[in-house]
């Protein structure tokens, strides 16, 4: 006789939206996926061992191993220890002398920890040389917090010197009203060979921050599921076009942006200072509406003259220009390609926000 038990799973999530859109996976002792559940559901399972997991807004897969016994079982909460990494034992276990690599992310707890984190003393100093389009709100040894100026004419940037290298990085802020609304953080990362910087959407922008963390951690399809529900929310309700653009890029990577083409047109039209919208629209028009190809080419040329926010957008534009130059013998296209292509070797492709090397002392 098969006996069963009941189990309820809750999430520790700061965002109600993200909590509602989180998929909880239940695997049995042979690691077979037996259920997919939403939050606060009571699940009935045969007694035995189970793995309960979900990818949360910090970009990590949180999991608990439980033994379900007959009757009611104690409830489980995923995400209780945000700063404790859910280490993948097989990466360590398979080769104990290989250290685990964890992709950089930026969460609310990291914002607090890094104020005087354990590694901060071992990281060389970095210097903020100049900013465009933002105001520095506060800084620590390894963090710089920026908020947008009220009106933007271009994607904001920060110019920083790390040891003897000068780097310019695009900043994912959106014009907002309060000191933390739609702000961003630049974090100095230790790195194995040399320190580097990454720009992160502030954790207060929970949905957009979650998208960036999921993307950084490699949970692309999870991020796409969240983005599919979030893009209109980000742009219209939260007035966060840079967060919305990130969601659109994620959807583009999984081939799911077409159904949002009208919304992408709004993004490109309403935020002229953010060329990432133009790039996405150009790509959609060229493929899906051949009669609007001249418009697509013009959008790409315009975008090539502006500072771009995301590396993915820069990459997409460069790829498009390389293909289109062969098909359309237009001087403006060739010029746009040459302007961008010269920067490509200096790009840090690991960085989500456009990050290019300027020079070395």
């Amino acid at each position, binding site marked *: 006789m098969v006996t069963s038990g009941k189990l309820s799973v809750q999430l520790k999530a700061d965002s109600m939206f993200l909590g509602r859109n989180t998929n909880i996976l239940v695997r049995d002792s042979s690691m*077979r996926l037996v259920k997919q559940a939403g939050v606060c559901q009571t699940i009935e399972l045969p007694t035995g061992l189970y793995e309960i997991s979900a990818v949360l807004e910090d970009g990590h897969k949180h999991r608990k191993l439980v033994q379900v016994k007959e009757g009611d079982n104690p409830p489980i909460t995923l995400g209780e220890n945000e700063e404790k990494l859910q280490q993948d*034992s097989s990466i360590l276990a398979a080769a104990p002398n290989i250290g685990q690599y964890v992709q950089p992310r930026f969460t609310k707890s990291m914002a607090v920890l890094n104020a005087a984190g354990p590694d901060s003393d071992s990281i060389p100093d970095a210097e903020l040389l100049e900013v465009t389009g933002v105001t520095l709100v506060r800084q620590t040894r390894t963090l710089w917090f920026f908020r947008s100026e009220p009106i933007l004419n271009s994607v904001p940037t920060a110019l920083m010197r790390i040891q003897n290298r000068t780097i310019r990085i695009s900043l994912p802020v959106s014009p907002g009203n309060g000191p933390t609304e739609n702000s961003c953080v630049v974090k100095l990362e230790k790195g194995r060979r040399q320190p580097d910087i990454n720009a992160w959407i502030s954790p207060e922008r929970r949905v957009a921050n979650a998208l960036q963390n999921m993307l950084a951690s490699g949970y692309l399809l999870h991020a796409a599921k969240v983005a599919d529900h979030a893009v209109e929310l980000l742009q219209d309700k939260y007035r966060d076009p840079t967060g919305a653009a990130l969601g659109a890029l994620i959807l583009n990577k999984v081939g799911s942006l077409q159904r949002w083409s009208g919304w992408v047109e709004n993004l490109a039209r309403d935020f002229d200072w953010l060329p990432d919208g133009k790039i996405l629209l150009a790509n959609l028009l060229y493929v899906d509406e051949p009669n609007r190809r001249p418009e697509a080419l013009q959008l790409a040329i315009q975008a090539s003259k502006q500072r771009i926010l995301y590396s993915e957008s820069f990459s997409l534009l460069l790829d498009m220009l390389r293909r289109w130059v062969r098909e359309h013998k237009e001087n403006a296209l060739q010029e746009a390609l040459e302007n961008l292509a010269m920067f490509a*070797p200096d790009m840090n492709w690991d960085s989500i926000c456009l990050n290019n090397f300027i020079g070395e002392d």
Partner: protein
Amino acid sequence: MPSIIPEDLNSPGTHALVIGVSEYLHFENGIAPTQTGRDFLMEQLSACARSASEFAAWLLKSYRCERAPLKSLRVLLSPAVGEEIHPDIVVHLNGDFSATLKNVREELAGFRNACDTHTDNVAIVYAAGHGVQLTKHGSIVLLNDFGANHHMNKLEGAIDMAGVHAGMNHPGTAKTQFWFVDACRQKPAIARRFESLTGALKLDELNGETLASPLFLAAGTGKEAFARVNGITLFCEALMWALNGGVAAGPEEDEINKWHIPVTQLIKRLPDRVKALAEKENVVQSVDIAGKIHEAVFHVYKDTPSVDLLVDLLPNAAQPLCFGTLKQNAKHIIIQNFNDWPMQHKVEAGLYLLSIQAGVPYLGRDEILSLVPPKNYTTVNLEG
């Protein structure tokens, strides 16, 4: 040189093209240096051909896809002097199997034609050699005779992986594709020289899109990742770890009723593994994910993978006093009353309950273990 296994185009299958270039004929220290080859200031490699052969051998011996079994395997290798090719591949290599432009052009055409025979086909491409990463989505991989004097354009001896990938991205071909590009990235001063060059091998692009075509673009700076003591590239080492169980996932819905390698696990875990290996060797290497990302299964295991389990017990003084029992699903006894620590056993992947009965002054306890391939080392500490 055609497929190293008899090609079968009568029903859906997996078609693979594997290219590995370690030797460059026309570089400064090549067997026939040319001015073009010298100008690019690049050195010979020593691990790309072997790495490609390792992947090809895995496809030949281990790859499993019931709905699309392996039906052609095209392998082009240009090994360096003394570079060892996998023995399972060596026996099949006859005639001219060098990764020259002419041979790559011919095999690419054959590969494309094979993929076009059924949309239920699966296409797999692996290419390794010197390269230039152009964007997050693509790179140029230089072929064995790059820099030949008879080439009309300077990039003629190179393959534009993004261009070939784009040319295979249409609804009339294999709807499931997997691309692995392992390119030794050049320093910016050299890479910049490639930006304005034309002539790399690519395919015409057709309208529409295929269903799934993830492209794993590994680009490492520095020769170290491509000329390693153990003979395979860093990316290949990570990929073989993944294929031999490192990213295996348990069964899911009815269609995927066995342990398998889903694309989502490759996307999540392969870059992490590459980074971990790179950090250990003090090199820089990253993996970008490009192409059409969609749920897909790369490989299905015939049986549940096994795990080499090792459980150690601390402190050492507790070991004679402790007896361990391992139960699959907390029900089926695998090991009972074990006392000769550490516990070492090969078990099927899954969830287990490890119960430790301890003598005074130690307290025993139960631990749930998630055992995933290939190995699991666990230490149970009874102190405190």
